[in-house]
């Protein structure tokens, strides 16, 4: 009789998840699933609200990437109004986004994953957390805390609040930037650069310790999707979508995010609140694709900033085609932090940043709007419909973690097959099952527009679902 292992809660991820594994009689792994266990219903609850409240409401989907939701939401609202925000507003939104990428990637790398990366996948689970890292590597822990703080401070200096600010608005932003705050951010840049380059060097050196993880952390061919700018370079805020296949051929390019429904459809499985988007022309589940840091570095032609470009070239040299193992998301995150610091520097040097023209005004001119940005975890889409009075009638949200759902599930199965035999599951194997999920840095608050609960349990079940044992 086949048995099922359940891991719940999954710890050190942002949200509520659970893993179940079916172990066959002969001890082989039959199946493995990653379940998202919470649901909040944003697509329904916003009905009847004025469109301009959507920025503040959808920020509350996620406390880690509220800026991404604010940007996608305000872009959807921009198109309902039919306006182009002034150039300065576009630049300020971009600067804000840099702050968010720095803090969110720093959270994922230092607070959530560095315990695995520095202390080892098999260390004592009691110690395997940020406090353990503080004890063992105080300097590194401090610089991780500093780097996240710099990102959060950039957000605060621009928007007045670190989490859930009300500064990004339909049509632009609602207060101009000041020279004083610009100079404060400038002063933070050398330290941010130092911490990031130092961490990159250290991380690259440590890669050889993770050969098995690299081989098994969702290391299989899939499509990749990400936004690129008009030159095909890395883009987080205003770009078009590109999809490549596992060999690196571009199969869809310069797709206007407003046409997302032509390339993406969403499937539902009854064992997870997180839907399963797939590349429509290939069907489900063959149209499996990945988004996020490594996917973005895979699809783009380069970063377009000098230091990040050097690192990008080195990253892409890891494999002949696209970099397949999702383990390398950790690596890609550090490169993206570098890209954001350089982008910040460029923006801060532009005098147009201080212009008081920061908002375009209009009444709703269109009944539908779509906004798209690259969130730290991948492509984020907000799609709204309103009535003549600008009250919301319908919404659809596709979040980064959703796009990766098929790949995370396959990744869990791949790790289970490599590290588990029979029902004897070592603690290190359990942690690797969670670590493969952590490599995607899923944001489960976002993913089901829901978050919550506890991280992970592992339970053993028979194929019919009866519980045998919980660890």
């Amino acid at each position, binding site marked *: 009789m086949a048995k099922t292992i359940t891991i719940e809660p999954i710890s050190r991820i942002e949200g509520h998840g659970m893993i179940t594994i079916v172990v066959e009689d002969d001890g082989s792994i039959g199946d493995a699933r990653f379940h998202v266990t919470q*649901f909040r219903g944003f697509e329904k609850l916003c009905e009847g609200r004025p469109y301009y409240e959507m920025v503040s409401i959808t920020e509350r989907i996620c406390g880690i990437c509220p800026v991404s939701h604010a940007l996608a939401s305000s872009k959807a609202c921009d198109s309902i109004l039919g306006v182009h925000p002034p150039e300065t507003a576009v630049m300020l939104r971009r600067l804000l986004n840099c702050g968010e990428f720095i803090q969110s990637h720093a959270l994922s790398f230092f607070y959530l994953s560095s315990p695995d990366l520095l202390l080892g996948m098999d260390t004592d689970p009691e110690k395997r957390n940020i406090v353990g890292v503080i004890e063992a590597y105080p300097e590194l822990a401090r610089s991780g805390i500093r780097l996240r703080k710099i990102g959060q401070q950039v957000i605060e200096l621009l928007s007045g609040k670190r989490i859930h600010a009300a500064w990004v608005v339909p049509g632009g932003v609602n207060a101009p930037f000041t020279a004083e705050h610009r100079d404060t951010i400038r002063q933070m840049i050398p330290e941010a650069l130092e911490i990031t380059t130092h961490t990159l060097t250290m991380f690259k050196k440590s890669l050889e310790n993770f050969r098995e993880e690299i081989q098994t952390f969702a290391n299989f061919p899939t499509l990749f999707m990400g936004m690129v700018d008009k030159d095909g370079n890395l883009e987080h805020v205003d770009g078009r979508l590109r999809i490549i296949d596992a060999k690196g051929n571009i199969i869809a390019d310069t797709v206007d995010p407003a046409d997302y429904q032509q390339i993406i459809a969403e499937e539902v499985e009854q064992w*997870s609140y997180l839907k399963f988007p797939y590349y429509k022309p290939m069907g489900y589940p063959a149209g499996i694709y990945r988004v996020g840091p490594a996917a973005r570095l895979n699809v783009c032609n380069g970063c377009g900033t000098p230091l990040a470009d050097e690192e990008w070239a080195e990253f892409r040299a890891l494999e002949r085609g696209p970099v397949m193992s999702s383990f390398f998301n950790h690596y890609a995150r550090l490169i993206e932090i570098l890209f954001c610091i350089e982008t910040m520097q460029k923006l801060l040097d532009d005098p147009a940043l201080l212009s008081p023209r920061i908002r375009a005004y209009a009444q709703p001119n269109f009944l539908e709007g779509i906004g798209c940005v690259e969130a730290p975890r991948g492509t984020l889409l907000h799609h709204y419909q309103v009535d003549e009075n600008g009250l919301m009638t319908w919404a659809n949200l596709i979040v980064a973690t959703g796009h990766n759902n098929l790949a995370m599930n396959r990744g869990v199965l791949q790790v289970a097959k490599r590290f588990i035999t029979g029902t004897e599951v070592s603690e290190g194997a359990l942690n690797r099952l969670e670590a493969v999920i952590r490599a995607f840095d899923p944001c489960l608050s976002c993913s089901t527009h829901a978050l919550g609960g506890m991280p992970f349990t592992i339970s053993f079940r028979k194929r019919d679902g009866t519980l045998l044992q919980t660890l």
Partner: protein
Amino acid sequence: MAKISLATIWLDGCSGCHMSFLDMDERFLDLAGQVDILFSPLVDNKVFPDHVDVTLVEGAVSNDSDKKNIAIIRQQSTIVVAFGDCAITANVPGMRNRYPVEAVLQRAYIENAAPPQQRSNGQPSKEGISFHTVPQLARMARPIHECIPVDFFLPGCPPPPRAILYLLTEILAGRTPQMHGWTRFGA
């Protein structure tokens, strides 16, 4: 000052309150020396400890697993703090309460999913969708004090880091925190 044990948990929230906790920045380094974090999304323990001095609860109670957990938390913690507006008022999660659960599910999983003819697995059908293995949604998202007695309320969306730090410092010193002036709803 004696060390205290701390748990933090998120129910139906956005993790923003937890992020505000981390926004203590370097002050977290000092705090880490004064408290033992026994259970939290930041650490690896899977089971809520038998006894914790202080538990910060983020988020509303929205499904059957939240209900089970909040009871365990109350039983096994000396002090329970309703951490942020979602825990105190159900805030944004509570916005779904004016619709029946079926309508909320219908929007996300039937209307906004691939049309049935494109589906490979035949589920869900037009008639509705049910889930298994994952927790079942409660009819309404509710504040935690409707389920259990709460010792302190820490409002804010999220509560500012200095307010969180003040609350913990007072508890560490064995005093009763007076939250007035430190934070407010929606802050």
